[in-house]
Structure formats: structure tokens, C-alpha cells
């Protein structure tokens, strides 16, 4: 299936096997699940949620410097 993700203002699409989780997506795009929050449809979701075809996942790094 195809999902979209938005990271640092850039939107990209990625092909993922069925039954994968948000965590799998993060690992695939080399983001540590510990260091980000993920939202879909304006709601934050836990990393172990299943991915849904066609959805856009917003990935937010939580660290701010300074």
C-alpha cells in the first residue's frame, strides 16, 4: 500500500507492505520513534498503530535546541 508522510515541511510518498505500523514506517525512513511524534487526521497516534492506505502521516521531531 501507499502512504504519505510529511517531515520538515516536505511531503513524500512511500510504498509499504500491508499490516505494517507507524513504527515500521519511521524505521524505514530512519527516524527514531523515540524522538518524534506522529499525527494523522489531526490526531496524535501511538507508534504501534497500523498504517492505513492513502493516509498522510505528519512526523514531528520533538527536540528543540536552545
Amino acid at each position: 500500500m501507499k502512504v504519505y508522510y510529511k517531515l520538515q515541511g516536505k511531503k513524500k510518498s512511500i510504498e509499504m507492505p500491508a499490516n505494517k505500523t507507524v513504527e515500521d514506517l519511521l524505521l524505514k525512513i530512519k527516524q527514531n520513534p523515540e524522538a518524534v511524534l506522529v499525527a494523522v487526521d489531526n490526531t496524535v497516534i501511538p507508534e504501534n498503530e497500523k498504517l492505513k492506505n492513502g493516509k498522510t502521516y505528519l512526523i514531528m521531531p520533538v527536540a528543540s535546541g536552545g
Partner: protein
Amino acid sequence: MKCTICKKPAIINLRYSKDAYCQQHFISTFDKKVIDTINKNKMLQYNDKVGVGVSGGKDSMITLFILNRLHKKGKLKHKPIGIAIDEGIKGYRDKSLVDLRKFCKEYDIELHEFSIKDEFGKTLDDFVKISDKKKMALKPCSICGVFRRYMLNKYSRELKLDKLATGHNLDDEIQSFMINLFRGDAARSARLGPITGVIRPKDFVLRIKPLYFTPEKESFLYSMIRKFPTHNYVCPYAHTAFRNEVRESMDQLEYKYPGTKFSTVKSSLRFIEIAKDAYSGLKEINNCKLCGEPTSKKTCKTCELIEKLIN
């Protein structure tokens, strides 16, 4: 995934405690943890006049918000105030101060701003350029940290504060501890801990860190849910810091072994206590012969730094 408390859909899964929370219960457990941290560490007394060192970032806004609520609930006599240091970092602090002013206006909180330029004649950006030109091998954060600590202490005293709260979270503290360890400067960790600065009470305003046990990921979510007007801008100098690498390593360990951060902070607390005992009383505190601020030497670190940068 369901909320541990009410079984509604969870928004966050805390692997270190095996709890998941919906929005409502995330907020209530977060608040409770911060209040517990304040109470267990005896950070505040009813009559204390409290200031919060604020930057326009999420963590200091949360700290100010929670302390302000304690005041509203009658648990703190005085309304807390905000103290901000404008370092003079173009494209960063100017923007984050806009967020901060908006926040303080929204919650009707008194805000005091002081700038490095007014205090020392030049902005941090200027000082960084000077130090580069002179090949001084000084990291921007080292200059920034010395000046900011100096000004916060000086103005907290002038504003007659009993306590100065800062927004340091669990991740910040672990990073500082590990950095000191890696650099062979473990004794420096005597300065860490949930409460610091008791050597000569009339000179040093006691520092408290209500978010000491709050991971940054959770403070990010809290500030997002509460819709605090922060953009969480990133300082352009932050990437030069060793700190970022330590942060990444800690995040990796936490991911592989959930709970690592909490056990690290637990060991660090034991260590900090021992270090405090071992190093307190060793130092005599004088007044800096140039500026009069408290120091363990003849001239304070800030005046030394200014001397090196300007002359």
C-alpha cells in the same frame, strides 16, 4: 491501543511505564507528575516569589503555565513572573520572543526581558564572530550559557525572587550529566539536580526544575494539546553542540531498551548527591572584583570571558 485508565483510543504509548493514555488522561498524569516533582523535592513554599526563566520554547511555557495555575488555585501566594534573556541570535531569539510575549499576554503574566547587548555591549552573534576570528575554540553555547546564567541570577536577585524555575526536562538533564561524564568533568554534575544553588543564599537565587522527570517527547505533546503559541524554533548554533549527538545516542538506547532514560536519571541523582557533598564547602565565595557578582575566584567567569573576547 487503548488508554490504561479509561479505555478510549490512546494518543501516546509510554513504553517505559507500559502505560498508554488518551488526551485527557495524558494531560492529567502529566500535571500530576510535575506537581509531585515540586512537592517531593520541596521546591516551593506558599510565600515564595517565583520567577520562570522563559525562552519562548515549550518547556519554559509549560513551567510558567503550571506554576501560574498553582497560584490561581491558591497554592502559591504570588503570581509567577517570566524572565527572558535576549541573547541576540538573529532569526531565532527575536522570533521566539514574539511567541513568548503572546503567551504572557494570553495568560496575563508579567514578563521581564533583559538583553545581552544591553548588558555587555554586543549581541551573542557578535561575540561568536569575535571568538571565531580570534580562533578561541569557544562553542557559541559556552559563551551563551555563561552570560545567560549570570544575567538570570543577577536579575532574579534584583527582582527579589525566592526561586527561579527553569524548563529543563528529563532529556536536558540526562544530556548534561552524560556530557560531563564523557568530558571527564564529572564533578561539574554537582551543579545538576532538581534544585540547585544554595551556597550563599543572598547571592544565589535557588533554581528549581519542575519538569525534571518529564521526557521531552511528553512536554512537546503537552504544549501541542494546550495550544501554546510556540513554534519551537531551533537555535542556529544548536547543531554545533556535542549535546545533539548525546541526545541521539540516548534516544537510540531508550528505543532499544525502554526505561534507560529513567534509570540513568535515577543513578545520576545518587551521583549528584554524592558530588554535592564532596564539593560543597570546598569553595569560598567572594564578590567579583570587576562586577561584584558572586564567584569562587577573584574575577567571575563572565568577566573573564568578556575580557578574553573584547581585549
